[in-house]
């Protein structure tokens, strides 16, 4: 196992800087997920940690040893690629053994490790097959097997599930989580899928345009997003956002928004004027809440255990509600719902969170 320290890490291609001043501590034995939209630099960051891309600024240290100039093979890590990167002309057994043969290991040890990995991943009956004879899920297992046989200090995953269908993705997610529980090795996992990030991570790093937007546990990111971007990116269905104006009062702020009657949020520490208020779809309660509003249903998405209601407010803005799947709703129906002011997230005109006095400050 190994911890990592990234200090002031930057990357530029020619004159074009894609990442700069990035600081991050990755703890020994944690499952860290790098998440963000396409082009945010998450894969580049992973490849720089792997040693497949050079860094142009700063330092990367694995267990206090700076590895900037260390080739990928000397960093004692394994990587699972999005494309699986299995050697198509070799059997599964040879694919698993290929990396080990570089480590000057006895044949018996190679065979032992290959058999052990095959047992853990339940691919024993596939060992003599070629990759083209495997399904997507099986290929993914072999790719993971190739990473674990080396018994590395650090695992890197580059969007490993994105080529799988939805059902298999859920299954592999569970398998990866249990593999992590079994091995306890530090894992860094890149994904653009926030559900994957939320379900698997010990901590999540949200990236945008080469900078870190927030680092925290899935719960921290969900309940206390540091800025509008994180609020919008984390959480499915997506958070509701409304423009509003705010004024400071003794113990908080007074908010006026065209969508709702004026209300006060207590315990907010800063003076703000133009704000964006955000409310999670599940915080909007039909028939309940202290701030109430009526709206007309424009779309009903029935998901079985729950229903997503898209509704139009009198101001013309649309709102998304998440409710249990027991009632029946129809397009055109009028509903009344409400929310508690403590469930409102407030962001200033820069998009930064206006923290409650009891919250810790976020990076």
């Amino acid at each position, binding site marked *: 196992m190994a911890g990592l320290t990234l200090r002031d890490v930057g990357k530029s291609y020619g004159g074009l800087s894609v990442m700069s001043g990035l600081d991050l501590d990755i703890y020994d034995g944690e499952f860290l997920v790098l998440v963000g939209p396409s082009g945010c630099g998450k894969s580049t960051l992973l490849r720089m940690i*792997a*040693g*497949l891309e050079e860094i142009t600024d700063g330092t990367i240290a694995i267990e206090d040893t700076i590895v900037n100039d260390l*080739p*990928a*093979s*000397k960093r004692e*890590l*394994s*990587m699972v*690629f999005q*494309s699986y*990167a299995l*050697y*198509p*002309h070799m059997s599964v057994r040879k694919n698993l053994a*290929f*990396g080990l043969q*570089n*480590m000057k290991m006895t044949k018996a040890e190679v065979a032992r490790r290959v058999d052990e990995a095959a047992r853990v991943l339940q691919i024993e009956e596939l060992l003599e097959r070629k990759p*083209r*004879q495997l399904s997507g899920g099986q290929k993914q297992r072999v790719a993971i097997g*190739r990473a674990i046989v*080396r018994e590395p200090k650090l695992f890197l995953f580059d969007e490993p599930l994105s080529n799988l269908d939805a059902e298999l993705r859920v299954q592999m997610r569970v398998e990866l989580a249990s593999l992590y529980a079994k091995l306890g090795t530090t894992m860094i996992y890149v994904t653009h899928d926030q559900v994957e990030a939320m379900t698997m991570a010990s901590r999540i790093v949200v990236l945008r345009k080469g900078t870190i937007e927030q680092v925290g546990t899935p719960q921290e990111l969900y309940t206390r997003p540091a800025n509008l971007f994180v609020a919008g990116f984390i959480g499915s269905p997506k958070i509701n956002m409304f423009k509003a104006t705010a004024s400071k009062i003794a113990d908080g702020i007074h908010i006026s928004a065209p969508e709702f009657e004026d209300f006060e949020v207590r315990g907010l520490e800063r003076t703000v004027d133009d704000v964006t208020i955000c409310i999670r779809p599940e915080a909007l309660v039909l028939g309940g809440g202290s701030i109430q509003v009526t709206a007309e249903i424009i779309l009903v998405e029935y998901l079985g255990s729950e229903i997503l209601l898209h509704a139009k407010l009198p101001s013309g803005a649309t709102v998304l509600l998440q409710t249990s799947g027991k009632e029946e709703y129809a397009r055109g129906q009028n509903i009344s719902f409400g929310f508690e002011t403590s469930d409102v997230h407030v962001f200033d005109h820069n998009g930064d969170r206006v923290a409650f006095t009891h919250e810790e400050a976020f990076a």
Partner: protein
Amino acid sequence: MKKFFRRNAPAYVFLSPWFVGFFLLALGPILASMYLSFTRYDMVGDPRWVGLDNYEYMFERDRRFWKALEVTFTYVALAVPARLAMALGVAMLLDKGLRTIGLYRAIFYLPSLLGSSIAIAILWRQLFSVDGVVNQVLAKFGIEGAAWISDPNTSLYTLVILAMWQFGSPMLIFLAGLRGIPRDLYEAAEIDGTSKRRQFFRITLPLLAPVIFFNLVLQTIEAFKTFSSAFIISNGTGAPADSLLFYTVYLFNEAFKFFRMGYASALAWVLLLIIGFFTAVTFFTSKYWVHYENERD
């Protein structure tokens, strides 16, 4: 039947120039040469049927036929691997992602365009002549060069070098093949600590096998048919001491110098069988060394 033609009519229309060319220009001469190979024919009188005489003479009494075979086989055995190795080497250099790759590709392909021309063969003769550029350069280093072309011991090798220089078309095919190998495989190997040498032998070569196979077949056929460079450099005779007596040069001389059309036809058919044999052997062995990713099991 009617439906078949209606459905495939456009295909036949587009194929028609080829059909016209094949039936009018190729099939006739092919069948004629087969017939002529069993005759004695000097283009003046009528062909005279001699049965298997031409073939019997070729295999049992014609020593120059065996010499031509020896020269051609030696050339094929040296020139094909040399050209393929050269082509692969240059393709791998170009595959490194040079920004001006298009320019280099064109420059490296140029010798192949010029290579089969008469002018280049003449240039080659100048380069390797006793007082040619090669010997002048060697002299600068204090080395006394040989009479490369007029010495029977070295003349064939000058043609092998010429063949190596014309690596353009297999190089382009190799380059396309190399581009088709996913980068991820090399990155995975890199992380696993696989040396560049092992990456070449265990990843590049096996994944390039279909392309190597294709190039091998094409270049072998090409090498057996080598004519113009050998003809020019040996002044059309196969000299010195028959060391450049390529099969095709011998065939040409039999046909158009001595007007032994029947015998030349027989020589042509034997060359066809030889090429067919080597192509078949390559195809047969390919299943042991060529891996296709989308192969059916």
